[in-house]
C-alpha cells in the first residue's frame, strides 16, 4: 500500500492511495491520513488505484475525512472502481461523502 500527496490549485490536497486497503494497508496509511487531515481544508481522496477496500480500510479514509469536515473543510472521493464503490455504498459512506468519477466534477465539488 502506498500513499502520496499533491497540492492542486485552489488549495486542494490530493491524496492518492495505491494498493489494497485491507487491514494491513489501513495500518500503513492510517497515520499519514490523519496527519494530512489535520491541515487539509479541501481533500480529494484519489481511489483510482485502490484494488480492495474492507471496513478497516474504510475507517482509515472516513475518520480523517470526518476530521476535515468537522473543521469546516470539504472532502471528495475520486474514481473508485466498481467494487470499491459498492463497498462505499453498502456501508452508507457513499451518501455522506461525495463520490466523483471525473476530476473536474471532483474539483468543482470542493470549490
Amino acid at each position, binding site marked *: 500500500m502506498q500513499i502520496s500527496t499533491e497540492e492542486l490549485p485552489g488549495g486542494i490536497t490530493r491524496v492518492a492511495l495505491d494498493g489494497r486497503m485491507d487491514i494491513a494497508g489501513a495500518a500503513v496509511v492510517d497515520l499519514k491520513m490523519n496527519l494530512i487531515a489535520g491541515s487539509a481544508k479541501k481533500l480529494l481522496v484519489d481511489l483510482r488505484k485502490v484494488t480492495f477496500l*474492507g*471496513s478497516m480500510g474504510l475507517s482509515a479514509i472516513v475518520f480523517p475525512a470526518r476530521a476535515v469536515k468537522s473543521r469546516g473543510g470539504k472532502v471528495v472521493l475520486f474514481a473508485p472502481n466498481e467494487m470499491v464503490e459498492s463497498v462505499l455504498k453498502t456501508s452508507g459512506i457513499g451518501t455522506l461523502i461525495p463520490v466523483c468519477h471525473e476530476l473536474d466534477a471532483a474539483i468543482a465539488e470542493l470549490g
Partner: protein
Amino acid sequence: MTGHGPSSPEPRLTLKSQLEDLTRVWPWVEAIAARYSVPPDTQFAIQLCLEEALSNIIRHGYQGQADQPISIACTVECAPAAVENEHAAELVFTVEDHAPPFDPLARSAVPAPAPASLQELQPSGRGIRLMRKFAGRLTWQQLPNGNRLTMGFVLTR
C-alpha cells in the same frame, strides 16, 4: 479440495486470533482463486467477507485475546442454483473458532440504519452489512466449543 496435486492450495488455513495473522489469508485466497478461476469481483467479495468475519471473531468473539485458534476451510459444492443450472458450483468457506457463542448475523437481524452524518459514524458495525451484501450465502452455527460461520460464493451460473 483434495487430490489436485502438489500445486493446489491447502484446503484449510489455521490462524491465531491476532490481526497481524490475517495477512496470511490473502495469499491463500489468491491461490484458491487461481486454482478455481475465480473472477476478480468474486475474489474481492471473498476477501472482504473473510476479513470482516475474522476481524469480528478477533475483536468480538475472542475480545482481543491473542493466540486463540481460528480455522478456515474451503470446499467446492453444488450451488443451490444447481437445479436450474447443472454447472453451478459454489466455493464455500467455513470459519471456525473456539470463542464463546457469538452469532454475528443475529446482531444485525435488524440492521442498524446507515449513519445520517459523518459525525454519527461509529468505528464498527459495517462488517455485517458488507458480508450480507457480498456473500451469496451466510449461515452461523453454534458448536459444542465454538462457532462456525459458513459463507458461500457461487462460481458459475
